[in-house]
Structure formats: C-alpha cells, structure tokens
C-alpha cells in the first residue's frame, strides 16, 4: 500500500506534524490485552458495585428501576440498529427513520401534544433547551423555575443561563408548597413546573397554564418519571406549551446515570423553534411512502451560528429501546404498568406511615414520596445501605447545606417493588430509629 501511495514509511504520512510532537513520548498506559483478560478486569470493577437487583431498592429521584422485557435488549443489539448511523442517506435508512416517526408519534400521544422531536440527550438538557425556546417564541426574558424542579435540572438551566438576572429559581418545596403563579408578570417568557415533582407531589397544571397564558407566558412541564403519564392526565390536555421528559423509565436501564433519553413535545405552531432532529413523512420517486429528516434548516449544520441549538447527536438507540418497549406495552400495558406502580407506592406509603419516627409528607404522589425521619437522612441511608437496603435518596445529597431538607429521604416504588422489600425496609428503619 505504501508503494501505491509513494511513501517510504508510515511516518512519512505524518510529515505535516511538527517533529517534536510526533511519537516523542512514552505513554503510562498498558499494552494490548486479550479479550479474556479485559473481561476479567471489567468484571472485577463491576463486582465492586452493589447492583439494584441485589436487595430491596427504593432509589428514584429522576431515574427509575423498571422491568425491561427481554425482547427490547435483544432487538437493539441487532447489527442494523446498533451499528447504523444518523439517517443522512434516507434511501438506505428507512428502518431508523420509520422508527423515529413511530417514536415521535408515541411521545406526542403520551404527552398529549401536537408534535415531538426525535429525542434529546436527556431530561435536564431538554429543560434548558425548552427555556431557551420559550424565550425565542415569546421574545421575553423572565424564566421562573418551580421549587419542585429536580435540583440537577435547575442546575443545568443555571449553567446554560449563566448569571442571568432574569432567571428566578424558587426555593425547594418539599411540602408541595409553591407560589410560582405569583411570580408571573408581563415580562415572563415561561414558568417551569415538574409533575410529579422532585418530592413526589402532584401539581395543578391547569391553573398554572391559565395563569401563564393570561400574561402571555408559556407553561413548560417537566416529567422525570414517564410511566406517570399512564395514569395522570396528559400535560397537553391541561394547557402545557412545551413538555420535556426523561424517557429512561421505558426501555432503558439505570446505567449509573447515562445514556438516558430526552423527550420534547410542543404545539404545532412552535415547530420551527424546537431544537433537535425531526423526522417527517413523504413519498419517493415511485410514489411510495417514506421518511426523511426534515426542517433541518433549524439545525447547526445549516444555520451554524443562527441555529436553534448546537445539538448534533440525539439518543438514537435509547429512543429505539423506548419505542420497542412502548410498542410492546401498548395502551393496555402502559396503563396497567402505571396502576401497578401507584398501587405499590400506596403500600409503601402506608407501611412507612406506621413507622415511629417517620412522617410521610405527601398527600398526593404517583410512585415517589418524601419522608421526614427523626434522624438526619444521609447517615441513616448510609447505615441502611450497609444492611443491603438502598432506601432512597437523602434530599441533602442534591441540596447540601440546606437545613430544611436534612431529615428528608425521597423513595420510589415501581412494579418491581415486592411486599418483602417493603417489610425489610420497615424492619430496618424501626431498628435504626429505635
């Protein structure tokens, strides 16, 4: 090959590299390793982690442990799904494109909105993008974040809107309290409300939508547990203008925080300001139905500095997993799954309410709730972990230094939570709090 190229050696191909920078170092890294040794190394690392399935598990707070049907993981490992690229040549990517069209349809249906995009990185970055989108649409600046918004989501919006005086972040609201409607004025672009919120409370979206619209502002609804949409009213039916959700609960494992799946849906009139890829239906030269990426002139590769966002990649394979799982569930399965979650959460809430030293703060919830404990939460959760029980998230982990939340733990129940899990948690709590 070097002969055909006309180069004496490989180094000649790197002739543009300044000599002092070319291979002039030794790397403190190991040499290549056979597969079985790599496997042993990785297994050793994995073995040092306590997996959620190893014992009673109640951790939620934005990522949820659900059953994923075996079919899903099997299908996403097919070569043509796993190793395909972004569908820039639509004629040979109709699989991906049709799947994205189906995915967009599913997301629009569960959120009750007109149109959804082909996914974003995750719910938190989606929230930041929704805020910027609302500003572009209303040409106003003030943004108000509810005190029930996931603290990480709030922090991402703060990072994207660095030092912006028009960004108002309300204080954490573990009791489900809130005065967000009073914050809306003529300069408000949008209010952002999460439901179920970070502490599990269910929020009144209709009143919020009405109050926002009365002042020419938009309502952005954030959903971190997408299974809740199987039992709760669709945000679109209650007046939401933009819905952002974390789709991880359907089809995607916990994976220590990523890769996850951002969902975004909005009104038809707002399409041109929505970031992310969009898949649309069309026909080919023979008149056959087909699908293509469309409205691309919003995006970075065309608009460059005038793009709606800098986004390039979406969450393709995670969207596929979501879509397959959702197709397997269908309406009958999705609503049943949601009912199961809520039923188990009721069992959990009632069991916890019977533990001396534990107070359940929620009157309303879907599958997640907040308790106040007689002892500081962080230490308690740590001691329970040593007993093999992952008892939820101490709120102080995401809100350090806030004395109001020091004794709060956020717990989730899903369809995987058993009576035995709940009994084990209750018994352990009683011992620790005695």
């Amino acid at each position, binding site marked *: *090959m070097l002969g*055909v*190229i006309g180069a004496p050696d490989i180094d000649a191909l*790197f002739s543009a*590299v*300044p000599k002092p920078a070319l*291979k002039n170092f030794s790397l403190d*890294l*190991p*040499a290549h390793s056979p597969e079985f040794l*790599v496997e042993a190394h990785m297994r050793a*690392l994995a073995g*040092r*982690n306590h997996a*959620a399935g190893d014992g009673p598990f109640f*951790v939620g707070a*934005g*990522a949820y442990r659900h059953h994923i*049907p075996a079919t899903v993981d099997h299908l996403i490992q*097919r*070569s*043509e*799904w796993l190793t*395909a*690229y972004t569908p820039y040549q639509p*004629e040979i*990517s109709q699989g991906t494109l049709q799947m994205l069209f*189906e995915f967009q*349809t599913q997301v629009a249906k569960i959120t*009750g909105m007109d149109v959804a995009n082909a996914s974003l990185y995750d*719910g938190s970055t989606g929230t930041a993008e929704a805020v910027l989108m609302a500003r572009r649409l209303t040409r106003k600046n003030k943004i108000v974040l509810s005190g029930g918004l996931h603290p990480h989501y709030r*922090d*991402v919006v703060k990072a*994207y809107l660095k030092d912006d005086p028009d960004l108002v972040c309300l204080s954490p609201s573990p009791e489900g309290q809130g005065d967000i409607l009073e914050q809306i004025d003529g300069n408000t672009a949008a209010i952002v409300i999460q439901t179920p919120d970070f502490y599990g409370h269910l929020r009144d979206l209709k009143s919020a939508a009405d109050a926002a619209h009365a002042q020419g502002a938009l309502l952005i609804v954030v959903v971190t547990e997408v299974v809740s949409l*199987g*039992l*709760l009213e669709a945000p679109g039916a209650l007046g939401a203008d933009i819905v952002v959700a974390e789709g991880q609960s359907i089809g995607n494992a*916990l*994976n220590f925080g990523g890769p996850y799946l951002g969902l975004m849906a909005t009104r038809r009139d707002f*399409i041109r300001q929505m970031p992310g890829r969009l*898949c*649309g*239906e*069309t026909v*080919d030269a023979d008149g056959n139905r087909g*699908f*293509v990426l*469309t409205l691309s002139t919003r995006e*970075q590769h065309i608009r460059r500095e*005038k*793009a709606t966002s*800098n986004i390039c990649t979406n969450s393709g394979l995670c*969207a596929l997993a979501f879509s397959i799982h959702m*197709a397997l569930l*269908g*309406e*009958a*399965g999705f609503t049943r799954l949601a009912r*199961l979650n809520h039923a188990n959460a009721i069992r959990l809430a009632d069991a916890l309410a019977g533990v001396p030293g534990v107070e359940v703060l929620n009157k*309303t919830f879907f599958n997640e709730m907040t308790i106040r404990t007689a002892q500081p939460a962080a230490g308690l959760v740590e001691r329970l972990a040593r007993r093999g029980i992952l008892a939820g998230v101490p709120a102080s982990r995401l809100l350090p230094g806030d004395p109001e939340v020091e004794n709060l733990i956020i717990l989730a129940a899903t369809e995987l939570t058993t009576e035995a899990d709940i009994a084990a948690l209750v018994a352990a709590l009683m011992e620790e709090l005695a």
Partner: protein
Amino acid sequence: MSMNNQGRPTGVGTAGTIASGSALLPDEPLLFEIGDTEHSGVDLPEVDLAEDRLGGFARKSKLDLAGLTEPEAMRHYVRLSRLNHSIDSGMYPLGSCTMKHNPRLNEKMARLPGFSDIHPLQPVSTVQGALELMNQLSHWLMTLTNTAAVALSPKAGAHGELLGMMAIKAAQEAKGEAHRKIVLVPESAHGTNPATAAFLGYSVKPVPARDDGTVDVEAVKAALSPEVAAIMLTNPNTCGLFEPQVIEIARAVHEAGAFFYCDGANFNAIMGVVRPGDLGIDAMHINLHKTFSTPHGGGGPGAGPVVLSEALAPFAPVPFIKRVQDGLDLVEHVEEQALGRVTAFHGQMGMYVRALTYMLSHGADGLAQAAEDAVLNANYIKARLEHLFSVPFPDYPTMHEALFDDSFLKGTGVSTLDFAKAMIDEGFHPMTMYFPLVVHGAMLVEPTESESKQTLDRFCDVMADLASDAKAGNTERFTAAPMKAPRRRLDETRAARQPVLKWERPDDLPQAAE
C-alpha cells in the same frame, strides 16, 4: 473481521451489501397500522386501584397507543432493521464520523449488572467500582492527550464543545477579561463550532484557509485582538489535514490572552501518535462514539468528555472524582464552582464502560496502530483515486480522511449528490457530502482502520468506475439513482413544505384541500 493482536484487519473484504429486491424487504407498515389499543406484548399482573392518591389528576384524555404482541414486535423491528445499512453490513466511509467496527465485548461488558443496574444516586460507598472505572477512563484520556484534567459528563461532542467553551468563558471572566466577546472559527469548521460560540453570546469571526487547505498563523495573528476570547480549531482539520502551524497558532493565541479550543472529532488520526496537549490546546472534546468505538445506534447516544489544560482545570464542572482516605468520592458540589453542571447525574456511564473496554483491548500500542492504519487507509484511497477525482488540497499527505471536490464532474451533468446516490446502487454507503463547505461539492471519505485492503480495493474499483462513467456522459445512471435501494430518492421538499411529523388516524385528519 478478526482483530488479532497485531491489530491489522485480515478479513477477505466485504462486498457491497445493501440488499435489494422486494422478496426479502416487503414494505413494513407503521406499528399503529398493525397493533391496536387492546393488545400488549408484556405480561403484567392486573391490579384494582380501589383508591388512589392522585389528587384528582387522573388521566381522562385518550392515549390511543397501539400495542404489539411479542411475535408481532419481533417481526416489525427485525423487518425494519433490514431497511438499514450499518457498519456490520458494509463499509461506511463517512468523513468526520469514524465508522469503525463496534467490538461486541463492549456490549457484553456494558450489560454486566454491576454497571447497568446501578443508580447514579446510590450511596457512593456502594459504587466504588463505577468510580474506579471513571477514574481509569480519565487516566487514559488525559495520558493520550497529555492534559491536566478531564470533564467526563458531556453527553455528546457538541455538548462537550459547549462545556469547553463555557470553561473558557469562565476562565476569561476570572481573569477580569469578560469584555472579550469574539471567537475565531475557521471557515471549514463543523457547524456545531459557530453554533456553540453563538449560544454563549460570542460573535463569530471567520478565519480563512490558505489555498493548501490549512490555517495560516499569520491570518490568525491578523484576526487576534484584545477582544478575542478564544479560537476554535479542528485538528486534524475538516479537510483531513494536520494543521502544520498548530503550535505557532497556539502560541499566538496564548500571547494574545485567548484560549485554544480544539474540536477533537478527528482524534482517530493521531491517538497514541500525537498528544494534543503538546500542541498547546486548552480544551478538547473527544467523541467516544467516533474514536473509541462506542456504537452509533442510528444517531446516538454519544459521549463527549473534554480534556482540559492546567489553565482551564479549575473551571471543570461537577461532578468529578476525588481520591479520599478509604476509596473514591464523587464531588457533586463545590462552593465557588465556576461552572456548575451541564447534565443531571454523572454522564454516559454506559459509553465509559464500552470505551474503556476498547482501550484495554487495544492498549497504547494498539491505539497508535489504529491511528496509523486509519491514516494509511485514507492515503491509499487518495492515491488510487486522485488521477480520476479532483483533490483540492494535494500539498500534504491526508490524515484519516481524504477530501475530493466536484471539479472532476464539471460538465458531466452529475452532481456530488447524484454520484453518492449511484454509490448506493453499487452497494456502498456514500461518503460525507457537501462538508466541509470550503470546497464545492465536497466528498469526504474516511475508511477507518477497520477496513481491509481487499475492501478498500473493491471500494476504489467502484469509485473509479463511477467516475469514468460520469465523465463518459452516462448521466442516467446517476440522476435516476438509487434504483436498487428500499426507496428511490425521497421528496424532501414536500417533507419540509407540508410537515407530517406523526401518524394520525385517517378519520382524525382535516380534509385535504386539493
């Protein structure tokens, strides 16, 4: 293809594999046209909710979500998958995308419950293995680039660019230089570069390229001023060339009080061979889904960790890993943290597992060999095709990708687009088209190290045949292409003028005005 421990591919070469013929590829309906709202493919126990705690917020509106049984779902998604080209089916010479083989050990390791079934907010004491993995990955990335710190959390390359530029912006503010509002971006840059800069409130000043396709340090010096916050440079650049004056450019940028952001999308050409830190970069994102073999998945998920110089290290976001007395800790809050966080939780752990598996398998020697093989393969293609195609920048050896423009098609009535569609009929996925924008009708070919000589020869034979045919005036072959793919050319104008972005029941559609 077997990745033996010499790292050189030894397969017999893959012919074009895009299937055609309707017997194997019947038209597949939409899932909503197959399923209905009563069926489900998941067995779940029924539960009667005698009472609820929903506060009156229970769903009243219809869902109208079609469900498929398991056999129906299998058929639907297997049949749809066969309409896709993929790396596993054949060569995918997309410039700038690095479509290398995705090793399956990556997938096996990512699915170990100790990695896939752990929650980001479990007590840190219960996930020490995960933190150790992130630590090891960080070590690999910093060592390969010779940098001081790495932010693992960005979810994609563009997200990494955003983070890197946020760090630069914070660093300028900390120095009292917040008035610097300009970012220099070469005209050949990927669209995410100016989009990112504009996102952060910078105005973008283009830097022209020389006739040889590289950036002139004198042009950079002329553009630098006390108003410039940073330059965003891709190296190797989007024309597939290593920037020969990159060290002088870095020096000039630093002397002017600005920072050097490097777009690391093309790191595959130089990993283990050149360390970007030695060139003077301050921040560089690395696309794990390009350089480090995590799968493309039809468009994502990606992962875009950002390595940082000493100057920018203090401006890394949370979270990051810290060694403490009895193990590793995850630092999630810092009092005067300049940046905060750019994503919920900790980043793309699923991709870290895959990337580290790949790095351990290859080792430092294997990674360097992969880079050299990628460069060798791209130069081979250029050498075999340059007498038939037009090479806009012939002065330097190409790096891992070869750039052609459409001058050789002048007068043939065949455009770059037509040429690409004809490649589909020959069983090859087209190269990247119309990028970079600095040449007309660009064709950017990146074979990666994964292709054997036999495959490259077959590819070059087909490309040469197409070029000759175009020049001979056989336009029909090109303008009517593709003829053998599951679909002919699609009407993108119609898709944009009359957007149909979801399925609707025929009786729900408004009456079409004819």
